[in-house]
């Protein structure tokens, strides 16, 4: 079968396109190599050096992983608990100063985490705005504790959840909730039966972003919570310490990085599977 191409005669136009296409292809390939090389390097080093596998089971690594996992999960749960309502209000209502609240919630996304750490210290540190009176009246300090780790993660990571949830809520036609009200559904029932079932893929995306960001939190934690093994030393902090050679050394850093890489991959795959299911059933 022959195909008649209407553009046959403009061969000049097509050939002029080809170098551009080639350049884009080469650039894309280079970019892909740049992305894959670091991870390949990690795996390659680990495969070569048996010590790495040994270090995976070291106390420091185990403690850091356990701490990272439960603090990130807890700060994500707190973000969901408080952030969902905030996101819904921001998406659905208008009030004076809404733009300001919106901007403040975005701030930690844009701000370097070290700045967040300093800010936390100034507010909740022993000499801080809130920290000092609390220390004075209750003899309680926030800084350099596991609580401080969670606070740092919450400040830096929760905006990712609020943002994603807000986007999800905004995508629901407001007429849908209005109609639900006229059909006798209370606000709560409307939220649970109409809004939530349609937004949960967006909420899930927010949860993954928030949790991943909390897992990776370094700057704010280092400044506000310190680097105390077993108490405030999360995985990223343990990697820093290993890399500086004061604990497990470079091989240790590689081992810890591999763990985080595995965790990240698992979460990503799980997320893909779950959202695909949500889209096909939703």
């Amino acid at each position, binding site marked *: 079968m022959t195909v008649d191409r209407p553009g046959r005669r403009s061969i000049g136009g097509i050939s002029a396109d080809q170098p551009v296409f080639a350049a884009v292809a080469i650039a894309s390939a280079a970019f892909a190599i740049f992305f894959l090389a670091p991870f390949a390097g990690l795996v390659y080093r680990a495969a070569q050096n048996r010590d790495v596998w040994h270090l995976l089971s070291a106390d420091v690594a185990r403690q850091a992983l356990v701490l990272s996992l439960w603090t990130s999960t807890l700060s994500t749960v707190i973000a969901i608990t408080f952030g969902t309502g905030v996101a819904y209000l921001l998406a659905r209502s208008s009030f004076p100063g809404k733009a300001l609240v919106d901007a403040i919630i975005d701030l930690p996304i844009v701000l370097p985490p070290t700045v967040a750490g300093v800010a936390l210290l100034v507010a909740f540190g022993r000499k801080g705005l809130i920290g000092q009176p609390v220390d004075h009246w209750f003899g309680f300090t926030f800084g350099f504790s596991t609580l401080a780790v969670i606070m740092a993660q919450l400040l830096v990571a929760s905006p990712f959840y609020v943002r994603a949830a807000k986007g999800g809520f905004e995508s629901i036609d407001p007429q849908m909730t*209005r109609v639900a009200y006229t059909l*006798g559904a209370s606000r709560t029932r409307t939220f649970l039966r*109409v809004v939530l079932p349609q937004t949960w893929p967006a909420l899930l995306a927010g949860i993954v972003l928030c949790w991943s960001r909390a897992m990776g939190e370094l700057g704010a934690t280092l400044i506000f919570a310190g680097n105390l093994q077993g108490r405030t030393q999360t995985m990223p902090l343990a990697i820093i310490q290993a890399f500086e050679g004061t604990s497990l050394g470079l091989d240790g850093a590689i081992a810890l990085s591999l763990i985080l890489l595995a965790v990240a991959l698992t979460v990503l795959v799980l997320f893909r599977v779950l959202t695909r299911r949500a889209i096909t059933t939703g």
Partner: protein
Amino acid sequence: MTLEFSARKRLGAFVYEAAFSAGDELVVLFGHSGAGKSVTLAMIAGLLHPDGGRIAVDGKVLFDSAVGVDLQPQVRNTGYVVQDLALFPHMNVADNIAFGMPAGINRRERVRELLEMFRLEGFEGRRPRTLSGGQQQRVALARALAREARILLLDEPFSALDESLRADLRRELLRLKERLGLTIVFVTHDLREAHLLADKLAVFDNGRLLQYGGREEIFRQPAARRVAELTGVTNILRATVERVDDDYATVDATGLQLRCGLPPGSSFAEADHADLAVRAERVILRRSVPAEPGLSNFVEAEIVSEDAYGASHTLQFATLGATRLLIDVEIAARPYEVLGIGQLKRWTLELPPEDIHMMPATDAGPTAP
């Protein structure tokens, strides 16, 4: 069912005020977008709170600012259907319909009834987005009626559909009204739709209810120039009353002497200013002024422009007198051809006295387009 409605509300610069009542009939709220039609529905449904007024359905007070009653939308029992339908995309048809059903009734049986009533049998397990536009429309109506709604509020429900489908659904709606004996409040900006469906017509403009009444009354006897304009009257002439005798008045419309029927209950006197509304399809074309004496309201004119709409033609005439008045004439395609209007450009226009509607003049300025 009956509906009593009166409400006022200020929304920034927009001031809303309207009052009307209806029985078991279809009330069409007509006007341009932003005129206050949807606001009215939202107030009946309880989604928008008036500053003052009273709303009652079947004697049950839903809102009354005087005694501080303001029922939640959840307990008002209105069937509210919006333009984009707002079907729940994550639920199948049966679950959509059953969503508003009160506990304690036989849901399965009631859903079956509604599926049958709206010819949706076999679709109960489908998601709304897999249905055609007309089917989605019927699901929305079924869902709105599932609670034994006392009043049906329809906010331009057919505007997203193509014309043939709209005609079907309009017939379906009229059938539904007969069958259920409901008060239906229907919002539209489509004049033909308004005319087809309305028992009563409420004409809104800029937040105000300009006129409310039976369909024929509104179309034949608009209360004011603006109502006439909104309901499709293209010929509105300024005039001064010269003489009033019995049921007729003689007026001067910028040099054109016309005899007009006086609308019942009107109180025109000599030298009063009036706006005359003449529907384009009411003007009669004649080849010449008839010889019989005592006839009036003939004017010679020539065609200055014409638009062909397929089924009909709209001709714009200019009178041949000293002041050239512009008068639109609408004529069906067949008489247009039979009379040979394509060739002949000069005609005598007859404006029958009964088809000239006199309205008290408003200060809207001259009508010339």
